[in-house]
């Protein structure tokens, strides 16, 4: 019969010493807590306490009795939200636009980067790179002014100058006709953001060891072949990580783009209303707390799942680039 084995006892402290771990820990690391405190306080009020506020979506908020005492209505707000066609429209708009943006960022970004690298004159390349990056630093308000310069129905460049060149005499009412915006918005978004992606891809391309190309040239590969077989495959990790990061955020739209550039024109909502602007309209403008908070929670939860999953995938590919 086996003797039950006694679990090992923790070693008794040596005579003459005492375990000082706790006090020692605080003496050593207490400062760190002090350092982190201000940021933690900001996070508490700016991020974490509002998370508790998500509960608003399940209540019929009556400001007079206050949020805490407002009646609980469970999923009613969500029922109402998803029964309208709005829910489908805003989801579709958000995802489709972001998908187009992601595709354009990738294609145009890589294309530009390849062209920059191929240019013979470094000075010219730097000049063009500088100009290409400029729109990134402009705010959406400024970009709205720039777009307005083109799309102003009476005196904008398009209606007054460019269209007549092509023989189109009738002005197009850009700000009230929804069908043009699925084209306008991607153009504006790419124009503004491409600098960022082109620079990233360029950095990756420049980092490729020259010897690969030299070996390929010796083997007689054409430049196109080299791009296809060396450059693109070697920057694949960067492409995938950047793309995945964007896909993770596919449920979040750039508020500035959709609110400012469209001048928040209601007649365009069919093709320009996204979840973020819908929540804003519903909550701040209309004051419909129920629907907007339901939409907000919907976005937060789906957004969370997407970001989380995409980050897990990124972890597999390139550990350094993952968030956790």
């Amino acid at each position, binding site marked *: 019969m086996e003797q039950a084995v006694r679990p090992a006892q923790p070693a008794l402290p040596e005579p003459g010493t005492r375990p000082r771990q706790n006090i020692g820990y605080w003496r050593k690391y207490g400062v760190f807590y002090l350092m982190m405190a201000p940021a933690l306080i*900001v996070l508490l009020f700016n991020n974490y*306490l509002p998370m508790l506020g*998500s509960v608003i979506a399940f209540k019929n908020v009556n400001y007079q009795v206050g949020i805490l005492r407002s009646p609980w209505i469970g999923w009613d707000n969500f029922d109402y939200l998803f029964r309208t066609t709005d829910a489908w429209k805003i989801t579709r708009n958000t995802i489709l636009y972001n998908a187009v943006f992601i595709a354009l960022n990738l294609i145009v970004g890589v294309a530009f980067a390849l062209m920059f690298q191929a240019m013979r004159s470094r000075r010219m390349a730097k000049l063009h790179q500088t100009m290409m990056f400029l729109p990134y*630093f402009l705010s959406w308000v400024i970009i*709205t002014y720039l777009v307005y310069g083109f799309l102003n129905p009476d005196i904008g460049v398009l209606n007054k100058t460019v269209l007549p060149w092509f023989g189109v005499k009738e002005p197009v009412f850009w700000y009230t006709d929804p069908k043009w915006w699925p084209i306008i918005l991607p153009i504006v978004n790419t124009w503004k953001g491409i600098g960022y992606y082109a620079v*990233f891809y360029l950095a990756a391309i420049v980092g490729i060891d020259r010897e690969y190309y030299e070996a390929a040239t010796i083997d007689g590969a054409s430049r196109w072949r080299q791009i296809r077989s060396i450059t693109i495959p070697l920057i694949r990790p960067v492409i995938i990580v950047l793309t995945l*990061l964007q896909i993770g955020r596919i449920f979040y739209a750039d508020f500035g783009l959709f609110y400012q550039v469209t001048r928040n024109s209601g007649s365009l909502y069919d093709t320009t209303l996204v979840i973020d602007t819908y929540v804003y309209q519903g909550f701040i403008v209309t004051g419909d707390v129920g629907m907007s*908070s339901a939409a907000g929670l919907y976005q937060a939860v789906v957004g969370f799942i997407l970001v989380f999953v995409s980050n897990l995938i990124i972890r597999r590919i390139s550990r350094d680039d993952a968030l956790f």
Partner: protein
Amino acid sequence: MTSLQAGRKWRKADEISPGADILINVFFWFYTAICALPLLLVLMVSFSDEKTVLLEGYSLFPSKLSLSAYDFLLRDWLNVVRSYGISIFVTAVGTVVSLALMAMFAYPISRRDFKHRGIFSFIMVFTILYNAGLVPFYIMYTQVLHLQNSILALMIPYLVQAFFVLVMRTFFANSVPYELLESAKIDGAGEWRIFGQIVLPLSLPVLASVGLLCTLNYWNDWFLSMLFINDNIHINIQYRMYKALQDIQFLSSNASAYSAILAQNPNFQLPSETVRMAMAVVGIGPIVFAYPFFQRYFIQGLTVGAVKG
């Protein structure tokens, strides 16, 4: 080294044909024009005569130039200057405080010997993963903190950006040699001293990069003014530009005087189109001027650091 600044380091596989090179150059001249022309258009319209603009439309080559738009802005400069002041204050103070807060959080979580750094990292990272949305955010700042119409409401939301904290953490962990810290501790330095006299001076690159990005965030923001400011005084320049596009009267410090003028003299025309564009020039100007200087550091920060997405 992927430094884009040292032109020598760029390697090309082999030279492309002159024909292809010309094509690419032409394309990029075209694209550069696309980037520059809208700004030039705004500039030229601001220097145009209002009636000409209304007749001929916005044009790069107006038939009649005029300074009346700027004249108007100069006469009624109070609001614009005030908004500029708000923008500058919020940007400067916000960036400095933000860098301080974020660096003080990033440093402890970068220290390998700090046992609980995982938890605090997670607390930071989680804010990227889950965002409660506009409604609770708004309610927090207005109903709980009562910060409507306060400048603090323009600063606090951007003080701690988890992404930048992570960038700083990576930099502290990889670029500040742990041995340096250890030897400082042996010499008897306390944590604050190590942080202030060793870590921060070594971290100027990341502080500069993140600082630039923070400055950009604050300067370009208009959303916070839209949400939280209801008076005409505490709004920043971007928001004022936005309102001016909606309603040109918004530029005037004295809307009632303006209405009175209109009532007496219905023919009085505010040169709205040109003044709007002058407003835009005033708003864009600083960025375009500062751009050549800071864009180098910005690109360096993007590519050399661990900033991805």
